[in-house]
């Protein structure tokens, strides 16, 4: 059916995708890798147009144009801090598209005369179910990250039962579809998948959301692979499997970078095992100070370590921070940035942010490299970070972040927190370090306070 040249083009596109993933996994080649992937995608799409006689060509082209515009505008407009939810959104629509394709293929197959091979039906059921899970799960993820809903785990008494029921239901419908391939079963299966996706992601705590995005991404990859099998298209099979496999592996790596197990991430809240903090401002006494006092503390230190976090990104205070650091270094103080791998809301968030402010690469120290040096630090300045320095990760079994490696800010002689309130961070638990006698709080939006701090240091 498909001419040989087209199959060769598909193979070339598949190779492009492999090279893209390879490129993306090393900093130097990442951008080119992404480009190669895009080239492969374009090649694939052009090929399909010339390889077979398509009807509705015009409508198809219009649909592609619409999708392109939405995609480009969305991707261009989004702010750095919102990229994770955008990725979730894109992933979700991909999963949705795969499910729709499988439904259409089912309709095609069932309207024909002959028997549909069993394997094809298994793959179809898989694509519909998992594609729908991926779609709705990603949408909930999006809502959480965009703070359209609470980022905290949502559980209710019947949740585990409801989840189990939905899962069973999905499984049963899949079996039914394989045994008796009729359209309505497929559609109901899709709805079951949507429900299942929602129930899967609801109980996931905000901090674990990126892991879930990555997992759903892998899911979508597998649905695309299954779709490829049904359509008899190797490109979809290879590309989908690539994403499925690398996505699963990546999910595992991300989870272990946050010190979480995958099972715990997904089912921790269901099992009811995690003890969650109050999520509200505590009214225990703390010591706070003004910019002028903090400026003096900084100016008379020999060694300062900056711990940037999510709040720095929100306040867009990175440029002012860099100026402050330059000022301090001009005074002969040794200053480094301690970068926690999951500070912020996506891996590498701080690197991106500080690179934008043109902080020299050498000043960014990875967690493993700097953790031994906190003992020698006179002052640690924690800017809009919280969970990544929360000792509960070491001391409180059952805390949602327990087991995550953290920056040893508590070992420094003085700790300064710049935040707006006593509210907890992403994980929603209190940070004992805030109440430590050696801690000083500098309240206010990070950008404002940072400017004040900067002028205070300058005027010293």
């Amino acid at each position, binding site marked *: 059916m498909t001419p040989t040249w087209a199959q060769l083009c598909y193979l070339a*596109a598949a190779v492009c995708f*492999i090279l893209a*993933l*390879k490129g993306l*996994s090393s*900093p130097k080649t*990442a*951008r080119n890798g*992404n480009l190669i*992937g895009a080239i*492969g995608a374009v090649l694939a799409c052009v090929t*399909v*147009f010339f390889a*077979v*006689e*398509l*009807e*509705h060509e015009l*409508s198809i082209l219009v649909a592609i144009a*619409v*999708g392109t515009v*939405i*995609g*480009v505008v969305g*991707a261009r407009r989004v702010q750095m801090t919102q*990229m*994770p939810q955008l*990725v979730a959104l*894109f992933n979700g*629509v*991909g999963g949705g*598209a*795969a499910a*729709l*394709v499988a439904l259409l293929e089912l309709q*095609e197959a069932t309207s024909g005369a002959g028997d549909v091979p069993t394997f094809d039906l298994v793959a179809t059921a898989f694509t519909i179910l998992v594609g729908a899970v991926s779609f709705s799960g990603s949408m909930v993820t999006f809502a959480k990250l965009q703070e359209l809903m609470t980022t905290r785990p949502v559980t209710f008494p019947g949740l585990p039962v409801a989840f189990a029921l939905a899962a069973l239901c999905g499984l049963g419908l899949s079996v039914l579809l394989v045994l008796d391939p009729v359209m309505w079963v497929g559609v109901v299966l899709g709805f079951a998948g949507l429900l299942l996706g929602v129930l899967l992601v609801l109980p996931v705590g905000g901090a674990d959301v*990126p892991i879930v995005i990555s997992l759903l991404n892998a899911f*979508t990859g597998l649905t695309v*692979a299954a779709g490829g099998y049904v359509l008899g298209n190797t*490109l979809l*099979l290879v590309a*989908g*499997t*690539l*994403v*499925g*496999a690398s*996505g*699963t*592996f*990546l999910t595992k790596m991300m989870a272990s*970078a946050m010190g979480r197990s995958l099972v715990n991430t997904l089912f921790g809240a269901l099992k009811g095992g995690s003890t969650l903090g109050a999520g509200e401002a505590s009214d225990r006494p703390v010591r706070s100070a003004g910019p002028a006092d903090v400026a003096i503390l900084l100016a008379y230190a020999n060694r300062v370590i900056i711990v940037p976090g999510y709040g720095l990104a929100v306040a867009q205070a990175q440029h002012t921070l860099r100026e402050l650091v*330059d000022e301090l270094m001009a005074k002969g103080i040794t200053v480094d940035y301690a970068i926690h791998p999951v500070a912020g809301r996506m891996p*590498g968030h701080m*690197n*991106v942010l500080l*690179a934008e402010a*043109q*902080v020299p*690469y050498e000043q960014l120290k990875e967690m493993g490299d700097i953790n031994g040096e906190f003992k020698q630090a006179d002052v640690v300045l924690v800017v809009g970070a919280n969970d990544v320095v929360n000792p509960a990760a070491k001391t409180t079994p059952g805390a949602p972040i327990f087991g995550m490696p953290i920056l040893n800010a508590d070992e420094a002689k003085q700790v300064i927190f710049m935040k707006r309130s006593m509210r907890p961070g992403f994980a929603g638990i209190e940070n004992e370090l805030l109440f430590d006698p050696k801690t000083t709080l500098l309240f206010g939006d990070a950008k404002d306070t940072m400017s004040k701090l900067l002028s205070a240091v300058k005027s010293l």
Partner: protein
Amino acid sequence: MSEPIVWLTIFVLSVFVGVEVISKVSSTLHTPLMSGANAIHGVILVGAILVTGFTDSTGALVVGLVAIVLATINMVGGFVVTDRMLQMFGGRKRQEPKA
């Protein structure tokens, strides 16, 4: 060799390629890698085009066009947003260290 086995073989090999090829990624690149992989599965667009181009029922055509729009968003948006992320990473190399 029977068809399903061929596909299984291709599947198994692709699994190995997928895992091995990214096994050395540093944690800084997790997000762009995820995003790039995400864009790649947008290639379901090819499938969406195929089913839409072969259908003759109007209902199916509409569903197919929706699938095409969604898949295109996934693919195009995915590559663009990945590029934007990576642009920031690379930034520090091309710009002056301290401007």
